[in-house]
């Protein structure tokens, strides 16, 4: 019987959702009502004729005549049909029961019966009948305890299958204790409680076994064969149905036969064996300790119950059954203790440790007091003394003699709750002081890890952090025991510590339970095809990962959790000498891992903050550089209307434009997009501007200029850094335009007649290669013609559907808005762009430049309009009129 995991919990999603939840609550309420009713019913004294009737028929037939408790002789015989009671004829068992209920206890009541076909009148002395015996109050207490603990566990852990099963088991135990199968007094209340009692008796053993098949760990056999779980209940349900049929339609009194008791006892025994198996399967001392109390409590309760109450069946006497049932209180107590102390089934209880301690201390004191008084009384009795002095003396003597025992027990209790672990406490204090002072991760791993290796006697300690891929965990550091020659810290790994671990399901587990994860090579070989459900698939993955970890020599994983998020983990090999990890080791590792996780998280946040500050500084610098590249004012050129704008994105890019008026009156138009972002791009743009300005002063051939600048850039920058650029010389007098493009988006010339022309002559982007030439072209730039230049930030802006703005849209806008000014065109483009993207800020820098040849005499300075927007928001129009 292999177990799946060792985390005391199951991830099975609650079945049935809200309906299931309400059904459970309704079940709890119904059980409480049934128990209450049963208690009231059982405590009531009623007249009884000492016979057992056959129910479910219209006639009242005597099934059995058990020996009377008062030793009297019952004149009724099995097989008699009761026709009348008292002075009334009866037509059904229910009617007969009602009649009987109206009689007086002890009275001699005439019965009219049919025996062997003859009607006889038989006097029957009615005895007092009460289901509850002298042990019933204890059963009531026990039932209440089970009900309460079951409900508490369900309410706090209903997502867990184990909690749900435990809850149901508690309900059945509650019914079990409150009901009695021994005899029926055929009142409807008895019929109900008896039937419910039978249901509890049949289902309980199966549920008990089921619970311990999934708790503390779900057994592999159950996971691999899910049909086993419902199968457990088939036989008990058949038994129950037979019982019910016997109760109402049978020819004999319904009872649980010996063979059935044996079967039910076998279920109980199997449950106990499953629990023991789980206990001995655990190598993890923490887990074993958590389950130890629970195991002992359950076995201490269930074994006497099994021996004295279940296996003897209904032959057992009341006293013996009581003796067998008394220890059953140990089951809810042990579960309560384990939940309060160890969060078994991941249940948090509101009960404070101090309250538990106070209660236990109080209980111990009361126990002590009881013993003192008892021993004192015994001494007095033995000595036959009656004087008050002797009484006081005896009591004091008893108190004195028992005092050491009380002190010892109290010490045990104190140690249990407020354990003073010298080394551990000291180490924790040391770590608590040291960890917050170490900011750097490496130093943290080195110093704290080293100290941990010393304290826990570890050969090494490796820390893994989550990698970019979800399942990949990267070695953040490894530190060896200072006395060993093993690997030192280093993120590249070593022979024993791989640089990466692949953990998916295991990581989920660690995050979920925040407790050490014992790595042990699975002894079970699972068939991949067996993973039919999600649960099975997860299990399979966990087992595969566990095998892989075991193969890497990792014995224990300790989660580093911050606010439920797994930020790292300790991967630990077996301890020196192959010793087992002790409980203290695990607690220390868990606590330190938590502290380190917090510190690493703090460190990460600190570093992120530093990076952010640095980035912001760089951004400011880049913006400053870029702003200086752009002309503060647009030049005034007669016969041309100019407009330009630069729309900044969040990041500073390398967009740049320039307008230079040469001495010969030509206007040099430059628009460029430098690769990269931030300062490097700004610097490259700055360099490009300087180079262009120099070359434009001495040459009027765009192709030649671009050729030279390309070589210059290639030589002075990394090949990964390049720029696209469009360079044009505009002669406003001769109405001509000479241009060449270095891989830039082709500007669009809209002729006065509305036709569009893309200026795409040129060559490769600048600075990328040391070869290639740049073709140039000269075209007319007559009145009404408008040249629209832009960077790729315009056409590559995307909307919500991830569709690009595109060149076609630009051309459409140019076509639609014919005859407008350069500034108006920019306004339209901006508005369209903003509407298209739905955002105020562009994803990338957008630079737009518009030249319009005017009809008026060339050189009218009032035609120049400049948009030199810098910074944010970009779409605010700022005119620069001259």
């Amino acid at each position, binding site marked *: 019987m292999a177990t799946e995991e060792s985390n005391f919990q199951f991830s099975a999603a609650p079945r049935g959702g809200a309906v299931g939840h309400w059904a459970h609550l309704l079940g709890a309420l119904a059980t409480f009502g049934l128990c209450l009713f049963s208690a009231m019913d059982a405590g009531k004294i009623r007249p009884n004729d000492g016979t057992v009737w056959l129910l479910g028929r219209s006639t009242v037939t005597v099934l059995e005549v058990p020996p009377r408790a008062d030793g009297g002789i019952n004149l009724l015989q099995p097989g008699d049909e009761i*026709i*009348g009671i008292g*002075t*009334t*004829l009866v*037509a059904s068992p229910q009617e007969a029961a009602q009649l009987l209920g109206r009689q007086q206890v002890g009275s001699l009541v*005439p019965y*009219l019966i*049919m025996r062997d*076909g*003859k*009607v*006889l*009148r038989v006097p029957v002395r009615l005895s007092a009948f009460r289901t509850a015996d002298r042990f019933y109050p204890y059963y009531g207490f026990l039932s209440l305890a089970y009900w309460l603990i079951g409900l508490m566990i369900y309410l706090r852990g209903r997502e867990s299958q184990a909690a749900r099963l435990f809850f149901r088991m508690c309900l059945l135990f509650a019914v079990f204790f409150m009901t009695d199968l021994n005899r029926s007094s055929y009142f409807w209340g008895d019929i109900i409680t008896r039937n419910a009692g039978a249901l509890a008796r049949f289902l309980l053993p199966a549920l008990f076994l089921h619970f311990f098949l999934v708790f503390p760990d779900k057994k592999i056999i159950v996971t691999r064969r899910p049909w086993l779980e419902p199968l457990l209940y088939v036989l008990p349900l058949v038994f129950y149905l037979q019982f019910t049929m016997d109760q109402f339609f049978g020819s004999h009194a319904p009872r649980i036969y010996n063979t059935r008791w044996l079967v039910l006892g076998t279920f109980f025994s199997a449950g106990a064996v499953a629990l023991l198996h789980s206990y001995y399967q655990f190598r993890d001392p923490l887990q074993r300790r958590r389950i130890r109390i629970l195991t002992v409590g359950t076995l201490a309760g269930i074994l006497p119950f099994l021996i004295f109450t279940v296996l003897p069946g209904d032959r057992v006497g009341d006293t013996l059954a009581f003796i067998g049932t008394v220890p059953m209180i140990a089951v809810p107590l042990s579960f309560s203790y384990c939940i309060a102390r160890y969060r078994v089934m991941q249940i948090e209880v509101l009960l404070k440790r101090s309250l538990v301690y106070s209660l236990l201390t109080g209980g111990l004191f009361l126990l002590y007091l009881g013993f003192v008084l008892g021993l004192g009384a015994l001494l007095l009795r033995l000595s036959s003394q009656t004087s008050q002095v002797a009484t006081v003396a005896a009591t004091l003597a008893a108190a004195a003699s028992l005092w050491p025992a009380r002190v010892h027990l109290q010490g045990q209790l104190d140690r249990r709750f407020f354990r003073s672990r010298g080394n551990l406490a000291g180490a924790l204090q040391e770590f608590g002081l040291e960890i917050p002072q170490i900011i750097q991760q490496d130093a943290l791993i080195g110093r704290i890890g080293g100290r941990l290796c010393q304290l826990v006697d570890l050969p090494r300690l490796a820390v893994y952090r989550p990698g970019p891929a979800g399942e990949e965990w990267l070695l953040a550091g490894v530190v060896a025991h200072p006395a060993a020659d093993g690997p030192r810290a280093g993120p590249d790994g070593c022979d024993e510590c791989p640089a990466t671990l692949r953990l998916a399901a295991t990581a989920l587990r660690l995050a979920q339970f925040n407790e050490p994860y014992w790595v042990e090579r699975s002894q079970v070989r699972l068939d991949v095809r067996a993973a039919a459900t999600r649960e099975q698939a997860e299990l399979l993955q966990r087992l595969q990962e566990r095998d892989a970890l075991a193969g890497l020599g990792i014995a224990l994983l300790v989660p580093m959790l911050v606010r439920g998020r797994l930020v790292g983990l300790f991967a630990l090999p077996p301890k020196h000498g192959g010793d087992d990890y002790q409980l203290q080791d695990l607690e220390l590792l868990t606590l330190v891992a938590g502290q380190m996780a917090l510190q690493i998280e703090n460190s990460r946040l600190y570093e992120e903050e530093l990076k952010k500050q640095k980035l912001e500084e760089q951004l400011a610098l880049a913006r400053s550089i870029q702003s200086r590249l752009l002309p503060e004012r647009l030049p005034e050129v007669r016969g041309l209307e100019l407009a330009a704008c630069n729309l900044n994105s969040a990041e500073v890019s390398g967009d740049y434009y320039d307008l230079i008026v040469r001495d010969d009156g030509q206007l040099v138009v430059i628009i460029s997009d430098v690769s990269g972002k931030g300062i490097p791009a700004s610097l490259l743009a700055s360099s490009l501007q300087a180079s262009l300005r120099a070359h434009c002063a001495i040459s009027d051939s765009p192709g030649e200029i671009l050729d030279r600048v390309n070589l210059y850039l290639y030589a002075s920058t990394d090949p990964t850094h390049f720029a696209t650029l469009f360079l044009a010389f505009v002669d406003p007098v001769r109405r001509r335009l000479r241009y060449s493009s270095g891989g830039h988006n082709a500007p669009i010339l809209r002729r006065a007649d509305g036709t569009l022309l893309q200026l795409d002559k040129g060559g490769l982007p600048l600075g990328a290669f040391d070869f290639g030439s740049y073709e140039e072209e000269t075209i007319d730039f007559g009145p009404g013609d408008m040249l629209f230049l832009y960077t790729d930030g315009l056409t590559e802006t995307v909307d919500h559907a991830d569709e690009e703005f595109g060149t076609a849209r630009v051309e459409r806008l140019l076509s639609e808005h014919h005859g407008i000014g350069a500034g108006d065109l920019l306004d339209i483009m901006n508005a369209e762009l903003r509407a298209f993207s739905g955002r105020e800020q562009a994803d990338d820098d957008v630079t737009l430049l518009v030249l319009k040849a005017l009809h008026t005499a060339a050189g009218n300075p009032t035609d120049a309009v400049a948009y030199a927007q810098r910074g944010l928001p970009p779409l605010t129009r700022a005119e620069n009129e001259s």
Partner: protein
Amino acid sequence: MKRSVLMGLAALALVALALLFLGGPKREFTTRSGEAYKLFERGYSQLNAFQFSQADSSLRRAVALDGEFAAAHALLSQLSLRFGDQADSDREAALADSLAARLPNALERAKLQLLLLAYRKPGDQVRDSLLDYVLAEQPTDLMALSAKASVLYQTGKWDDCQRIYEQILAIEPNHAPAYNMLGYLAAGRGDYEQAVTHLRKYAFLAPGLANPHDSLGEVLSWKGDYADAEREFAAALDAQPDFHYSQINLGELYLEQGMIAKGEKILESIRAALAGLPQERELDETLIRMYYTHELYDEALRAMESYQRKYPDAFLCDFYRAIQLAMQDRREEANAAIAGFLAEARRSDAFAFKNYRDQLDNLEHQFRAMLATRDGDHEKAIDEWQLMLDSSLSRPAHERWWFLWRQGESYLAAGRPGPALENAKRILETNPARIRPLLLLARSALELGQAELAGQALAKVQPLLARADAKLPAQQTYRDLIAQLAPTPAD
């Protein structure tokens, strides 16, 4: 508008409440006194249980509480009849009748009239129409159903009667009188076991009453369980020492078993108590029947003479006179007497009913058969007995056994032991403890050469005769038969 409606509703509610609390006590059957009605119910039950004195007490207390309690007066009228006080009965009936006229409710009036008519002759058109009316209005009214069943019983419609009683039990499973009547109906069908079952239920439902035990004793005696019957009669008398029916039945039981002196003693002991009541006449009729059955003809003749003196107006008086004359071989006078008896009887209103006519035919055939027997014309006697048997098919076996026996005796006398044997067997199937049929069986068997069967019959009759009086003629017959059965030296 809405407010006024609400206020109106509130006022209505107040009025309803006032009516509820101020409307006075609930009106029961012809009275507003709840206590008087309870006494009436008790008296009615006691009357059905033949606890006449208790019933009388209850009903008189009821009318003391409510002098205008018509139903109570009607029951008192019935009770007075039981006590033989015709005048008082008439007076109570008249009072009830006058009170009935003042009852506002027609159904109540009808039910009251039913009570008044309960003892009228069968076939009373008024009663039948009243019954139909009440049952149409209240199909589950137990009083009306009981009256209906009673009418059906009296008219010999046994199956319908049984159906009504079963209907009553379906409404009220613990209706004791219904079990009483079902018991008698079962006995009438010859299902004595079923009759005992019903009557035991009746006894169970009415503990402390004499009548259930008396009824049970009767049925047990019919089927020959004399010891059990004796116990039941004793139980009846324990429950009600003045229950004269049981005293008569107990005396008859002893007479039936041949314990003549014991029977006579019991019957004579109550004669004084029954003086003037119908039961006294029944007592004398029982004695005559028993003497005749046991062939104690002298005693029978004396009893018949006494009967004629005491009850000259009784229905059977002339019949007994005819029998007496016939037994004294005064044939002409006997014939004249029987003719006169029959002529008188046929003038009765009851002659319109078959039961009555059958009864007259029976008596006539009985007389003729007896005459034929005395004349030695046994074949004629056989025929006459057969006619009696044919005309009494509707009567239960325990009432017809005597005819069968007498016919058997005639068969034997006519030298036809075979049919005699069959007749004896038929009688003994119902009651295996009848002395005369057992002796007839033995004699017939001997005639037929069935000594073993005769021996068995004599073995059965021996313990019966051991308890019987020594003077009983059957004792001599037994001895003779024993002598015939005893092996002779020659054998």
